[in-house]
């Protein structure tokens, strides 16, 4: 029992940190431009694919360095020549634009790399069990994922709160006009943040590609969950996004690992149903079965009862 719990926690932590790497960029972009970027997970997918292509020539580590840079430049270009152009048509147009972009990137990935799953492997150097507990191995690569994520967060935290650029960024989020009056190029800051946010998604893609498989649907699989996290955490709140990422990661991990179901709940209440009962599917639900929909259930509940999210500010 304890071993299941421990490994579910560790796996949940890996997923949660990975999700936060995406959610942090999305949250930063949202707080600057007020736009939820539907294509954010597409940059994550691009990261994985670029890293796959680079690693097959130059090895994993060069891919880890180069792929996020390429994705970041692409993101900056999208902001400069796409989003900024659409901005004058209003908010809905911006949201629809990013939605269309996500659609387009998925098709482009299929065009350049094909529809099949890519054999993107973790580096040999990390292909060993980091430690063994209760007879179960925890791979070094997962440890590496945790290490990279934590490293990036510390770096991001210091950049945002301690550096001059970070302070200008924070000021530009709340008072863009004042910052512009002080002589800073606010559109350039926006472009930079969009690029860095996309690059972060790219990093997530590079390190998640080998574990979560690299295929054209990987953006869709993660994309809506990242959205859920940003909304549950409270739009624009980095701390909220962090809590929500870990919450969703752990929740899904526990649900998959558990063997509980409706029948246990009913047994606890002393109720039982025949197999022929018309709602049989409902009475035989198990937690692993509903694990994929838990985030969305949580999203709808949060939006109904606390539309601002966990740490969100008051609505305008």
């Amino acid at each position, binding site marked *: 029992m304890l071993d299941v719990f421990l490994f579910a926690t560790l796996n949940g932590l890996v997923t949660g940190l990975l999700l936060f790497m995406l959610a942090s960029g999305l949250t930063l972009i949202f707080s600057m431009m007020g736009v939820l970027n539907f294509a954010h997970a597409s940059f994550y997918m691009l990261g994985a694919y670029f890293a796959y292509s680079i690693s097959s020539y130059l090895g994993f580590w060069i891919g880890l360095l180069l792929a996020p840079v390429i994705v970041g430049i692409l993101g900056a270009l999208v902001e400069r020549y796409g989003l900024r152009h*659409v901005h004058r048509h209003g908010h809905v147009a911006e949201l629809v634009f990013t939605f*269309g972009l996500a659609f387009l990137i998925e098709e482009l990935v299929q065009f350049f790399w094909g529809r099949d799953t890519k054999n993107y492997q973790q580096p040999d150097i990390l292909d060993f069990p980091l430690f063994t507990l209760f007879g179960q191995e925890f791979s070094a690569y997962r440890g590496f994922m945790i290490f990279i994520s934590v490293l990036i967060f510390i770096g991001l935290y210091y950049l945002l709160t301690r550096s001059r650029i970070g302070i200008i960024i924070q000021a530009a989020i709340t008072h863009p006009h004042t910052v512009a009056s002080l002589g800073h190029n606010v559109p350039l800051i926006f472009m930079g943040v969009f690029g860095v946010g996309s690059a972060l998604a790219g990093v997530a893609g590079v390190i998640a590609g080998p574990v979560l498989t690299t295929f054209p649907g990987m953006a869709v699989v993660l994309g809506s969950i990242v959205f859920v996290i940003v909304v549950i955490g409270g739009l624009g709140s980095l701390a909220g996004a962090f809590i929500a990422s870990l919450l969703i990661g752990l929740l899904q991990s526990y649900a998959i690992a558990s063997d509980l179901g409706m029948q246990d709940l009913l047994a606890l209440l002393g109720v039982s149903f025949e197999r022929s009962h018309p*709602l049989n599917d409902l009475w035989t639900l198990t937690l692993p079965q509903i694990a994929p929909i838990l985030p969305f*259930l949580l999203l709808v509940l949060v939006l109904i009862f606390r539309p601002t999210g966990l740490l969100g500010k008051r609505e305008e």
Partner: protein
Amino acid sequence: MLKKLSIWVVFLAILLILPLLFDSIMGISILNQMAIAIVIALSYNMLLGQGGMLSFGHAVYFGLGGFMAVHALVMIEFETVTFSVTLIPMVGGLFGLVAAIFIGSFSTRKAGTVFAMISLGMGELIAASSLIFVDFFGGEAGVIGDRTFGPPFFGVDFAQDVEVYYLAAFWVFIATLFMYLFTQTPAGRMANAVRDNPERAEFIGYSARRVRFISFCAAGLFAGIAGGLFAMNFEFLTEENLNAATSGRVLLMAYIGGLGYFVGPIIGAVVLTLMNSLLSNYTELWMLYLGIMFVLTVMFLPRGFAGFIMLHQLAWHHGRLKTLALPYLVTGVPALLCAASLIGLIEMSHTEADIFHFLGLPLNPDQLVSWALPVLLTLGAGYATRSSLPQLRDAWHAANTEGKRAK
């Protein structure tokens, strides 16, 4: 009044004549899909175009209505209930309405991002549940029905697709008429007001939430009718019909056609259905072209095709449309050439054949030389388009402003 009435008579006439013009099996099948697409796209326009609610889960009401309709077909087959299958779309519509009343009761409290997120969440939730609740949704395999049972409707038993087309045409006409009439009711007008300025609407004394709720329920009803038509036409439904991809396609249709104009979604539905059924025969890359077209539409035609047509209203009123013809030709021909050679390039890079026919020219994709011509053509045509743009802009300006001065 007479002018408006004549538009509807023309619409009805077109609906009735179309199957006579395109009477092949494929023609009828495309017309049926078009009919379904028109109803769902129009119902989506009620939400986004008229009510300002961006939904990422509109296929839920389409799918739920469709599933209920298939179950109704099964019930008719086993004589649990007895009524004519002509009413099947209504069954779908009512179930779509019920679902919309339930979900709308909490999702319409806010518009904007909150509404969009709830619609996304509910869409994912129901699409995922449809794989869990096998009894109603049939799991991966879906649910199958048969439309030929039940009492015949004046001797028609709907074994032929043409018969289904006329039924669909009837429902399309009814649905379009009622959706148009809805925009003329106080509820429809208030939906526009709440879309543009919810605060002001509340000050006049309307509850923005209730206005949104009414639009939302009406949209759910018509989406359900479209689902019922889908059930009649295809006789089966799967999870695919209510998942996020279908919802996205509806958004694409309405947006490309043009939001805010009543005819916009109809144009979008027709264009997308044609692309879907005709283009997919020629190239497996048609989704890529669709994506490019969509992104370009959002960037340069924010009001869609219908909005583009409507831009010419002023010039037309002043009889200056003629002056635009030549500049359009000068820009349009190289633009089309550029697009065509670009598509040729894309197709050539993806082909597995030894000889690729590029605009009629047989080229060998393995030789580097054969790439030079298409690349040069694309760049040249692109440059010609670009350099003719200022001229077009001037002509456009002249056509619109001179008219004003004359007035």
